[in-house]
């Protein structure tokens, strides 16, 4: 299998000292996963499940107090191997944007408010592309027009653009160098549904055209259903289940995934869905054993003491649950009839 990214036993904690009390928050706790060339990998999970921290490590955007405690992250670009958590500043600079790029959460705030779009493009992409003035400009304009943006946006300030346009500009900014690996962190959250759909198909289109790999993060399962080739579910800093999109929706093997899938709203469906009881665990003091057990309807004594390993249950399908054989789709979960919709 042609993998671009290998993550092995990654642990990244927030090590904080506030008024003399030191605390560690285990935002990413022992995650192993790999991303292949030319695929969209969806990462799902509730807010504060650690998915944003994972993304920060992958994008080499860590800032204290977030620190990698253990494990490794390896990118394979052009036969070259690089670990963003240990690489030198110069090496990182060499791969950034040309190979590894990032679409950040919140299109409203990622563009410098006092800088025209064209200058931001020059700041970000001129050096990696290695093009001179007019050629660079032509490249950017061409790229923007493929995102259905007129060249006039280059002369604008961010606040003069609509939310959807701004999001397209940031996607353009992240993809103008045709990177091999794109990390997209909730790129559609603040957008209205129509724009959201447009932006999603745009990302998909660009990915197919360039053959890049995309790690796509969102808590919205319906977006994953439309976008992802494979999905990984993060709960309380751990990867609890991973598999091809279709299997994740029709045959989930982790009670948490089953719950997420069942909570998807669907047209014409009026059945009440049971809410998941309890709150997501505090990552500073996670429960022992399986971290999901306090909220799990299937929990047994073993779940309370022993951490379940990530087991392979089918081709490409792994889950971390002691009772995965007993997991059934919940009421309201998609059935065969809904396949057309996916």
């Amino acid at each position, binding site marked *: 299998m042609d993998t671009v990214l290998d993550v092995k036993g990654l642990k990244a904690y927030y090590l904080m000292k506030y008024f003399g009390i030191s605390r560690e928050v285990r935002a990413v706790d022992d995650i192993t996963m790999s991303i292949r060339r030319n695929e969209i990998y969806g990462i799902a999970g509730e807010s504060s499940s650690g998915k944003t921290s994972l993304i920060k490590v992958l994008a080499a955007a860590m800032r204290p107090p977030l620190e990698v405690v253990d494990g490794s992250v390896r990118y394979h670009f052009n036969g070259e191997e690089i670990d963003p958590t240990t690489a030198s500043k110069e090496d990182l600079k060499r791969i950034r944007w040309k190979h590894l790029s990032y679409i950040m959460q919140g299109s409203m705030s990622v563009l410098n*408010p006092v800088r025209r779009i064209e200058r931001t493009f020059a700041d970000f992409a001129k050096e990696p592309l290695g093009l001179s003035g007019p050629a660079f400009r032509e490249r950017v304009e061409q790229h923007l027009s493929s995102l259905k943006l007129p060249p006039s946006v280059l002369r604008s300030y961010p606040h003069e653009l609509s939310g959807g346009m701004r999001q397209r500009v940031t996607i353009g900014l992240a993809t103008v160098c045709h990177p091999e690996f794109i990390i997209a962190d909730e790129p559609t959250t603040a957008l209205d549904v129509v724009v959201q759909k447009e932006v999603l198909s745009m990302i998909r289109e660009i990915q197919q055209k360039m053959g890049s790999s995309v790690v796509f993060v969102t808590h919205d399962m319906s977006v994953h259903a439309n976008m992802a080739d494979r999905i990984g579910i993060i709960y309380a800093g751990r990867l609890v289940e991973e598999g091809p999109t279709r299997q994740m929706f029709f045959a989930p093997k982790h009670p948490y995934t089953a719950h997420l899938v069942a909570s998807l709203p669907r047209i014409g469906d009026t059945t009440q869905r049971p809410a998941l009881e309890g709150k997501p665990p505090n990552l500073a003091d996670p429960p022992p054993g399986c971290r999901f057990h306090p909220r799990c309807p299937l929990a047994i004594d073993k779940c309370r003491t022993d951490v379940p390993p990530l087991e392979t249950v089918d081709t490409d399908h792994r889950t971390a649950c002691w009772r995965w054989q007993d997991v059934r789709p919940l009421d309201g979960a998609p059935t065969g009839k809904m396949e057309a919709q996916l």
Partner: protein
Amino acid sequence: MRAYLLFALKRLLQLTAVVFAGVSAAFFISRLSPISPVESIIGRVSGNSSFSPQAIESLRSTLNELFGLNIPLHEQYFNFLGRLIVGDLGPSLIAFPTPAMQLVMLALPWTVGLLTVSIIITWLLGNILGGLAGYYQNSRLLKAFGVLAIGVQPIPYYIVAFLMVIIFGFLWPVLPISGGFSMNVRPGWTPQFILSILHHSILPATSLVLVGMGTWFLGMRSLVSNIVTEDYVTYAEIAGVKEERIVGSYVIRNALVPQLTALAMALGGIFSGTIITEQVFSYPGLGTLLIRAVNGGDSTLVLAVSSVAVIAVASAIFVIDMIHPLLDPRVKVE
């Protein structure tokens, strides 16, 4: 462009209101004075030689007319506003009969020059250093500078100026501590004269810069330490944008916007500080003139200086307000 003009018009209205309120306050406060300028002139004149009571009486009515005191208060007020617009508030007392406004206009360039240069240096230096200190939070040198800024910042202008006089006047006399230029140089557009002005302005300007810089340094440092956590800075860092570019165009550039507003708001206070600094260094500006006027009991001159000070400060604020939309494209110029 039309929007900008409208914005300017609105600010101009505000400027007018501030000036109007300020000079009105100055006028009414000065009219509370128990000392009549007319009586003090008469006292001075009649003390030297003997005049007939008729002569004194006619002198009094002439002076009353000259100062515009022979009419009711509200008419005096309107009179004052009218004369202020024309720029003639009557003769001064300490340099009778030189018009008060003429004295003010002679002093104004000194103050404006000293203030403009020192404010620009203070603001730029404080903001750049503070910006660097906020971005490079581990730099020892900048940390030390921060401690120094905290130490100097709360000291009043007077004390700093006074300490400089002690140091350069008594302990290490290398710089002129008094006056605007050397006595042996003839005023005019000659290189010697300009050099002499610059030489004499070093200490007053330095003392203004020293006191003022700490505020900008500390303000900028805390602003920047917040801005570095903004998404657009993080994003530029992730994208591997050049560090100088991030510090300059992303971090400091954004922090300058609120600092410009702060400058407009601080101008009144800075002006007050200049008055006292001028006095300490006997600098021939508005401050020294104001203090001479107070000591000489010259109410016309005090009123003239106060009015011009209000107008000058309000105009400077207006100018800064006009720059604001150029620095921040988001300001709605409606």
